[in-house]
């Protein structure tokens, strides 16, 4: 076989695999823009532009409950990403630049927090959030601040690890020079580390934001009314409201949209991100 021939066969195979990836998502989009009467019957993978409707999206977006879910998700993900980036940066800087006894153990311990199966922590977290972590009437249960803090257990080890690698890559001579000029630790972080680690911090922020946005299990058990997120809203379609498939598809599309949007920005960091650097992308 000629080289050019094999090139196009590989191309054709990848077209096929990409279709396998995209067809379920395309189908969901089709369901979300179909009129109710067109949902059932012979399935067609073609978009019928004449009968297309955005009603499902309009209904969902104007629904106060979903506005609240969406807002909660935005607040929780953004605040959590900012928090883990800030704390992760401080911790990573300490790990990278300071001589401390037992810091390798601390590093390992921080990372193990990410490994545990979340389901095993649901019950104790629920009991802690409703009981132990409360002051008078107020408890962490069903609050956005509760979720923001809790998602640290997933995202902080990740941010910590990712940022440590980035700070290790910045020559220590640069901050030593600043210290000689009389800068404080805070000034060194602000004027040397943060500017140089900027792109790395951005990647960390984006990935942790997506992880927090995607989280479901904790959000579903540790909130009830006020702090529900978009993922719990989506799950309610299979349990509470019966089966309004069009609206469910619309919500699911809105849920997966951020992931699709940021994919291009962070694509080459995803492998290192998901394996904690055990495999370099």
């Amino acid at each position, binding site marked *: 076989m000629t080289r050019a021939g094999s*090139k196009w066969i*590989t*191309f054709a195979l990848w077209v096929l695999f*990409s279709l396998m*990836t*995209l067809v*379920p*998502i395309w*189908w969901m989009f089709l369901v979300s823009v179909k009129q109710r009467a067109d*949902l*059932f019957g*012979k*399935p067609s993978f073609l978009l019928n532009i004449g009968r297309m409707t955005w009603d499902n999206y309009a209904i969902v977006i104007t629904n106060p409950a979903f506005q609240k879910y969406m807002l909660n998700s935005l607040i929780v993900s953004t605040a959590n990403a900012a928090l883990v980036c800030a704390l992760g940066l*401080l911790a990573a800087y*300490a*790990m990278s630049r*300071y*001589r*401390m*006894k037992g*810091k390798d153990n601390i590093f390992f311990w*921080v990372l193990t*927090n990410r*490994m545990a*199966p*979340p*389901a*095993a*922590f*649901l*019950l104790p*977290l629920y009991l802690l959030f409703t009981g132990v972590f409360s002051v008078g009437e107020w408890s962490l249960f069903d609050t956005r601040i509760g979720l923001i*803090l809790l998602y640290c*257990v997933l995202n902080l080890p990740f941010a910590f690890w990712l940022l440590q690698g980035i700070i290790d890559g910045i020559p220590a001579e640069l901050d030593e020079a600043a210290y000689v000029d009389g800068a404080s*630790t805070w000034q060194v972080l602000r004027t040397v580390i943060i500017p140089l680690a900027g792109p790395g911090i951005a990647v960390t922020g984006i990935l942790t934001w997506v992880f927090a946005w*995607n989280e479901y*299990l904790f959000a579903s*058990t540790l909130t009830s009314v006020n702090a529900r997120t978009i993922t719990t809203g*989506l*799950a309610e*379609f299979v349990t509470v409201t019966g089966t309004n*498939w069009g609206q*469910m*598809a619309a*919500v*699911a599309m809105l*849920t*997966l949209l951020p*992931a*699709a949007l940021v*994919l*291009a920005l962070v*694509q080459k960091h*995803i*492998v290192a991100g*998901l394996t904690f650097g*055990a*495999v*370099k*992308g």
Partner: protein
Amino acid sequence: MRSSTTGWLLLLPTIVILVFTGVMPFIYVLLTSFFDWNLFAVNPEPQWAAANNFRRLVHDAEFLKSIWLTLKFTLYVLVSQVAIGFALARLMMRDFPFKKFFRAVHTLPLMIAPIAVGATWRLMTVPGLGPIPYYLKNWFGIDYRLSMFPDQAFASVVLMDIWHWTPFVTLTLLAGLSNLPQEPVEQARIDGANEVQIFWDIILPAMKPVLLTTIFIRIMDALRVVDEVWMLTQGGPGAETRFIGLHIWKIVFPKTDYGYGSAMSLLTLYLTIVICWLLYVAMTARKERPL
């Protein structure tokens, strides 16, 4: 290297938060697992129960079944994903047009919320609406109903996981393949080795570290699968796809039998750690063994 006091101060917030969200729940679940504590019992206050909760676990058929299902699921998805992922990674190594685009599309499922993955597959498989039941019926005469047939439900969950996570295996193995030195392969080809020999004798041994890391991470993730399975089958029909995470979350936890639930959570955690540790030992032992 600078003095340690400032270093510890910088680490402090991270340690404090992880103590509250990671260590305290662990200690709490450890404590409550030794108590009888059910909000709806005659006496809703916690009472010391020694190891009774754990004794109950060993005879709990539902719990044992969920463990068995989880292990079966993990084995199925792992074998398929490693096989498919390796093939795709090799295919991605070739030179072809629009490679970057195809790679991005292939990566997409990894970023999607698992709950949305479940929703996607739910819409594909709902009878009357989804294309899968329709075409299985019309082309092959197969009656496909997730809520009726355990084997179909299990197979669908496995296929969904393959769709969702194979890209992860592809990407890690692709990273491994890209970093392999080319000389041994070239040399073997000059020496007259065929492609099958090159794969088994040169590429596979060289890929072992990446392969084992990938398998390790996939097992950890497969053992804790919940969201997408809940969206697709709700653990049904009956309890045929009710994996361990689902079992704790939907069955044990809402019953407010907190002592027993804690014992189950703890045992799940313990099993995960044991599996993790066994894998780790297997991985490191391989490396040290002389050839």
